[in-house]
């Protein structure tokens, strides 16, 4: 446990030691700043009510950022250790595979949470400058953040698995992007499927409609369970992938 904290701190610090973290941060804030501008614009047009948060958490921009950020944030976690050979010093230290995978995953997740922190300013700004008494409801806002955390946590776990399996960073990034992209687009089949049953089945995994629900303040336990269990599955697979060198 003690060395787990050491590892987690190192993983989180590693983001700030590479330029990539700053690039991702700038990209993230630019896109969300633009989203926020659109949101303000929509508010000026007329009272939009609870759907305001959907501008932030359900927009195309939200998905673009997430689909790009997750592979970029996770691609180097294991691949870099493999190319530089530090995986050997790491795994011959008294650490467990589970500890290493969890430290790397939580390091990435912590960075992801840090990315979101500045967006809290948007709510504060609206409160301070809007003539409306309550321009944003707390419920949809918390729902939106919860949704972003759940979906992000799942996407990052896919990235950790890809990095544990892949040999090269680019391979890991492409594999992760492809995997979460497929998952993302599977949700759209809900609109395309002919039979009722298929439509319902696809709706269960539609990230887009999950996020729209969350951003309305509707927290359904079904998507929560879906993302939590998928994340756990990915991390379990990642631990196995790191252990795989022991089977060769």
């Amino acid at each position, binding site marked *: 446990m*003690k*060395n787990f904290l*050491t*590892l987690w701190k*190192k993983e989180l610090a*590693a983001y700030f*030691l*590479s330029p990539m973290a700053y690039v991702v941060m700038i990209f993230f804030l630019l896109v969300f700043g633009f989203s926020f501008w659109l949101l303000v614009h929509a508010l000026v047009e007329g009272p939009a009510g609870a759907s305001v948060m959907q501008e932030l958490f359900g927009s195309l921009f939200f998905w673009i950022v997430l689909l790009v950020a997750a592979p970029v944030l996770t691609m180097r976690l294991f691949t870099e250790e493999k190319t*530089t*050979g*530090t995986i*050997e*010093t790491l*795994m*011959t*230290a*008294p*650490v*467990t595979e589970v500890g290493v995978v969890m430290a790397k995953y939580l390091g990435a997740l912590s960075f992801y949470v840090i990315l979101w922190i500045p967006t809290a300013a948007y709510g504060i700004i609206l409160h301070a400058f809007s003539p409306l008494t309550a321009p944003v409801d707390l419920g949809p806002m918390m729902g939106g953040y919860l949704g972003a955390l759940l979906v992000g946590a799942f996407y990052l776990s896919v990235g950790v698995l890809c990095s544990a399996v892949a040999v090269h960073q680019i391979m890991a990034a492409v594999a992760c992007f492809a995997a979460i992209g497929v998952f993302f687009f599977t949700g759209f089949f809900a609109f395309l499927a002919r039979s009722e049953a298929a439509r319902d089945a696809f709706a269960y995994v539609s990230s887009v409609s999950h996020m729209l629900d969350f951003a309305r303040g509707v927290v359904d336990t079904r998507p929560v369970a879906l993302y939590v269990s998928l994340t756990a599955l990915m991390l379990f697979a990642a631990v196995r992938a790191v252990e795989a*060198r*022991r089977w*060769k």
Partner: protein
Amino acid sequence: MIRVTHLTKRFAGCVAVDDVSFRIEPGEVVGFLGVNGAGKTTTLRILSCYLPATSGTAEVAGFDVFRDSLEVRRRIGYLPENAPLYPEMRVDEYLRFRARLKGVSPAACRRRVQEVKDRCGLKDAGRRIIGQLSRGYRQRVGLADCLVHDPELLILDEPTLGLDPAQVIQVRELIRALARRHTILLSTHILPEVEAVCRRVLIINRGRIVASDSPGQLRENLQSGARAVTEIAGPADEVRRGLEALPDVRSVRPDEEDGPWRRYLIEGAHGTDVRPAVFELAARNGWPLRELRQERNTLEEIFVSLTGTAPGEKRP
């Protein structure tokens, strides 16, 4: 300290380590010698718990490397080939991270890091970024990392690979100094290194241990006979016949010529010394003599005779 019994490691389509058994006692400094691809690194990786063996067992300090892997890893300092490090970290940062990872308490951490930096000649390098360090300094950081939790056993894989001659000497001296407090197993394909630092040599070839002895003893065992070299100025035929007539001399081979001087290689019977007789012969005939010495088998020759390949040569 280390007990390896019938250790075998198979990779897809090749046997890297083949039924290897050996023991290393506490306090020993053992050189693990073999050509590239002989199975050195694989054996060391099994001992450091990075790879599992296909069959056989390995114990370090009484703990099995597979079942009690964490206990073993707490007790060893392992330096992989090429000393892999995180290039974006500073030396102090890295050493502190590694110390904490290996269970050094926060209170002792700063002191331990300072200590190993002093020992490895990194006193002034603490603030430097690892990626900008020279090869020699990186190797020292790797060694410092090995030592930071004060392990009982050091496993060093080619610790002098890629260093310049001055750095090689520094690293060897450091290893010699460490030998007073730690058991050391180091692999190399450089023979003088083994003679310089190790009290015992394990020679591995094609995954099998072919010899295990002190460098001096190995030489003794393989000495086929006493070989002497002499340079004498005199009529070549006469000198040769004179030398051949000496007692204990098996054969004489004239070698290169340098003006009036000619070099002769003399094979003597096992355990004899023909040098006094050669001197007397030259003195009696009034032939000037400018060199007379006994030649010993070098470790290189021993190596070749044991493995059938020259050191550093890739296995076919």
